[in-house]
């Protein structure tokens, strides 16, 4: 039976992972876009991203566009599996007889 993932369970990281899950497998999204989408500060989003990166759930790529640094974020296949397993665990709780 799938189990809840304590790393993903935190509300901001849950929304972050859900946003990344909405992307196609070959897509990555810009840091500023995620920050605005999720209504988080730079520092807050950065901390959550680092936590998820340490877990191997996402990868970050730093690049330069017109001499300005930009960071792109994408979910890894490990992160996708972990997220889907977390969702299954949530559904299993709902399916549990009360």
């Amino acid at each position: 039976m799938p189990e809840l993932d304590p790393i993903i369970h935190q509300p901001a990281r849950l929304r972050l992972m859900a946003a990344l899950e909405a992307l196609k497998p070959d897509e990555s999204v810009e840091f500023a876009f995620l920050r605005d989408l999720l209504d988080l500060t730079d520092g807050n989003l950065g901390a959550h991203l680092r936590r998820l990166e340490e877990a191997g759930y996402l990868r970050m790529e730093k690049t330069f566009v017109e001499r300005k640094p930009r960071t792109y974020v994408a979910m890894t296949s490990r992160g996708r599996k972990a997220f889907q397993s977390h969702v299954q665990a949530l559904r299993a709780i709902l399916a549990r007889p009360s």
Partner: protein
Amino acid sequence: MERHEALESLKIIDEAMAQTRRAIAHGGSGYFFIIWGIVWLVGFLANELLAPHTAGYVWLALDAFGLVGSVIVGIRLGRRVRSPEGRRSGLRAAALWALLIAYGALLYWAASPPLERLSLFVTLFVGFGYAIAGLWISTPLLLTGLAISALAAVVWTAFPSALPYALSLLGGGGMIGVGVYMLRAWK
């Protein structure tokens, strides 16, 4: 974890995924509406308030502003999400507008409408372009195209002399309003 907490988490997930898809698909469309709304607002007012020769130059400047502004916004929006498909879609959208402009010029040459119907012809063709592009890109663009075409046809039939004011204030102003709404609602 309790059932209501699991339900709440699943709701948060569904909302975040829907919001992300909406923001990627439509989130920046509002900028295009605002840019072209300004073009319509100023351009059609210039038609009425300035000499035809001067208004022609105003339209040239406004069209350049609209095209350059759209390209800049398109490039910036394209940078938010990196994907091989996104680049292809951007090029396809640019090709669509280039084709529409080319066919608009050809139809104008072939139909040769009288000068007093020039605004109506251009407006209906632009409305057609918005509607066709909207079928691919976004429902608000489709509805805007249909609304602009209906507005132009109705005003031309009932009050032909009011057409430039209607296109400026209702058409241009409406597009700016829709654009601001889209930016706030679909960030």
